[in-house]
């Protein structure tokens, strides 16, 4: 039982190291949410802005499947308005800049969607948007 002190010290060091992320952030304010570029054109999004910030990924997946699989292109929003289901034509016509809108929030939340490996930002990358 002579090792009791060594074990206790070892355990204490282990607990301190494991809980480092918790106590090191204790008391400091959470990082401020990113300042997203507000669209210049358009007064409202296809759905409520709050709903969009939480669910845009599901909506985009649904659009993708409907356009590619069913060959449709019109989306009827909850308030009855019609929109073309297109990331680069509809979304990017108001949210003009991917870098100051999409990327800022994706960097903040540390998610890495692969949309832009193929899809284009018309204002930046295409001759005739």
């Amino acid at each position, binding site marked *: 039982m002579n090792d009791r002190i060594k074990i206790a010290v070892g355990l204490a060091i282990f607990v301190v190291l494991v809980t480092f992320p918790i106590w090191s952030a204790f008391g400091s304010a959470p990082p401020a949410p990113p300042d997203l570029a507000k669209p210049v054109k358009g007064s409202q999004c296809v759905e409520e802005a709050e709903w969009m910030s939480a669910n845009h990924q599901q909506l985009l997946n649904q659009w993708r499947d409907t*356009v*590619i699989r069913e060959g449709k292109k019109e989306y009827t929003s909850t308030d009855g308005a019609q929109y073309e289901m297109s990331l680069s*034509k509809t979304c990017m016509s108001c949210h003009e800049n991917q870098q100051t809108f999409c990327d800022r929030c994706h960097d903040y939340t540390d998610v890495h969607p692969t949309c832009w490996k193929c*899809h284009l930002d*018309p204002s930046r*990358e*295409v*001759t*005739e948007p």
Partner: protein
Amino acid sequence: MNENRRSFLKKAAGAALGIGCGLPIRVDASTTQLAMVVNKKKCLRQEVRQACTQACRRAHNLPDLSDSAHEVKWIWTEEYQNVFPDQTHSHDAQATKEEPVLVMCNHCTNPPCVKVCPTQATWRREDGLVMMDMHRCIGCRYCMVACPYGSRSFNWQDPRPHIPKDENGRLPSDYPTRDKGVVEKCNFCAERLRDGLQPACVEAANKVPGGEGALTFGNLADPNSEVSRILKKEHTIIRRPSLGAGPNVYYIV
């Protein structure tokens, strides 16, 4: 045992009818079958073929890759003897054998590529268009092996740096580029059809003087469509009919 021959036959007939009613009866209910007619003679002129291939390359942001093992092709030119290997014989004139023919995905009625795709990234739409979903493609290349026409290309590298850009570094079209590791092919310009336009190659051929009608696109299920009218009037052939894939690209030779 009081079963006589008559009652047995009655029951057997009833059972057969019952089974018959339950069987899935295959009725082709689709009212659309998209198809293309290529007029080989009108495509003999290089300007016509070039207009078609260039329009396609620009409309779909295709990369210019000089290495033939890496090149990406949607519509391109092949020699007659390679397009129709079962239509040529040893006494054909050399000039005939080497005649250029425009080729593209045949959008088969019975597409072998669709059968082998493990992720349903490629499938036959109800309008007969054999479509690709780049989001689902895992790049296994089974479809490339299955396609008897070599209509599919694999992206061995990121194509974006190789797409011809204008002086401001911008791409010719807003059509999404592809990523390294996916298979692609002609999609009969599904994105243009959605907007009520004709495929880019058809539109480009019609703009070239003398190229009008080099390519005709339409609905084969509609007896009054231009493609149906041409097929009723002209002698047309398809590529390698014995394979049974049922190509929907027809050639006036």
